[in-house]
C-alpha cells in the first residue's frame, strides 16, 4: 500500500502544479510602475495637434490612461466598454495613441518625414475614432512609442488607473472586459475618488 502511496501523491502534486501553471496568464506581468508616479510627457493632441497634453494637468483627479492604436485588433474588442464608460462620465479617460503608423507593419515610416508622419497618424487615428466612437476626453499621439516605453507598454491595449496625486494605482494589460471594468477598475476609481 505504502509502496504506491508516495508515487501517487507525487503524481497528484505534479498534476496540480501543471494545472495551476497552465491557468496562469504569462502576459500578466506585474508592473513595477504600480505605486510610482506616472511618467511625465507632453504630447500633441489628436483633435488639436497644436496643443499638447501633460499628465500634470490631471492633478487632483482620478483618471484612466488607455493605450490604443487603430491597427490594434484587441482595442476594437474593448472599445465598446470604453464607449459605455464615456457615456456614464464616471472617470476621465485619456487616450495614448501608441505608434499609430510605426506599429503598423505595412508602413515603412523610414521614408516619411516627421511632419507627414504626424499628419497621416492623425488622419488614421481620428478616422478610426469617427468610425468606432470616441470615448476619450482627449487622445495624444506617441508616434515613436517612447512614452510607451516609459510606461512599460508591451502589448496594446493597456490601461492605467492614476490617482489624484498622479500615482499609478493599477495597470491592466490586454482588453478591458465588462467584468474587469465593473469588478476591478470601477471599485478602485470609486475608492480613490473619496
Amino acid at each position: 500500500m505504502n509502496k504506491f502511496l508516495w508515487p501517487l501523491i507525487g503524481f497528484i502534486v505534479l498534476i496540480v502544479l501543471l494545472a495551476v501553471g497552465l491557468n496562469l496568464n504569462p502576459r500578466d506581468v506585474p508592473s513595477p510602475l504600480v505605486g510610482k508616479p506616472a511618467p511625465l510627457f507632453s504630447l500633441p493632441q489628436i483633435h488639436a495637434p497644436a496643443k499638447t497634453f501633460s499628465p500634470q494637468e490631471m492633478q487632483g483627479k482620478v483618471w484612466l490612461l488607455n493605450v490604443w492604436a487603430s491597427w490594434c485588433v484587441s482595442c476594437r474588442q474593448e472599445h465598446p466598454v470604453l464607449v459605455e464608460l464615456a457615456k456614464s462620465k464616471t472617470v476621465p479617460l485619456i487616450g495614448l495613441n501608441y505608434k499609430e503608423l510605426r506599429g503598423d507593419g505595412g508602413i515603412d515610416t523610414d521614408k516619411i518625414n516627421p511632419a507627414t508622419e504626424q499628419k497621416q497618424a492623425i488622419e488614421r487615428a481620428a478616422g478610426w475614432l469617427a468610425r468606432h466612437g470616441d470615448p476619450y476626453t482627449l487622445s495624444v499621439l506617441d508616434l515613436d512609442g517612447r512614452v510607451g516605453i516609459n510606461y512599460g507598454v508591451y502589448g496594446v491595449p493597456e490601461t492605467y488607473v492614476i490617482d489624484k496625486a498622479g500615482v499609478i494605482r493599477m495597470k491592466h494589460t490586454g482588453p478591458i472586459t465588462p467584468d474587469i471594468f465593473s469588478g476591478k477598475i470601477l471599485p478602485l476609481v470609486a475608492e480613490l475618488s473619496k
Partner: protein
Amino acid sequence: MKRWLFILALALGSIVAQAKEAAPLAADEVVEKRMVAISDELRCLVCQNESLSGSHAELANDLRREIRTLINEGKSDAEIMDFMVSRYGDFVRYRPPVKGTTLLLWFGPAALLALGLFGLIRYVRRRNDDISDAPLNSEEQRQADALLLHKDSQQ
C-alpha cells in the same frame, strides 16, 4: 520572351524587397557590441522566450534603439539595466536578483535535487536492511555451500 522578362522583373523585385528588410548597421561597433551584450540578458516581453537581442518584435527593435541611445548618452550597463527593470520589472531580466519572491526560482531546483537524493539514500538503505534481514537457515546454507562446491569442482 515577355514571360521571361516578367520572371526577371519578379526576381529583381524580390531582391529589392529583401534589401529593404536588412536592418541598418549601427555606425559604432563598440556601441553595438555593448547593446547586444546587454540585450542578451533581457527578455523580450512580446515573445517571452526570446531574448531582446534575438527578437524581431517591434518592441524589441524600439528597446534596442533605446539601449543604443542610453549607451551614447554615456550610461553604464547597470544604469541601463535599471532603466529596463524600472519599466518592465524583474521579469525582463533572464537572471533576476535573489530576493524573497525569487527564492524558489533560484533554490527550488537544488532543493528538489536534495529531496530526491534524500529519498534515494533512504530507499537504498532500507532495501539493504531488508536483504540482510533475511539470513539463510542452516538447511539453505548447506544447499548453497554444496552448489558452490559443485561449481568449483567442475572448473
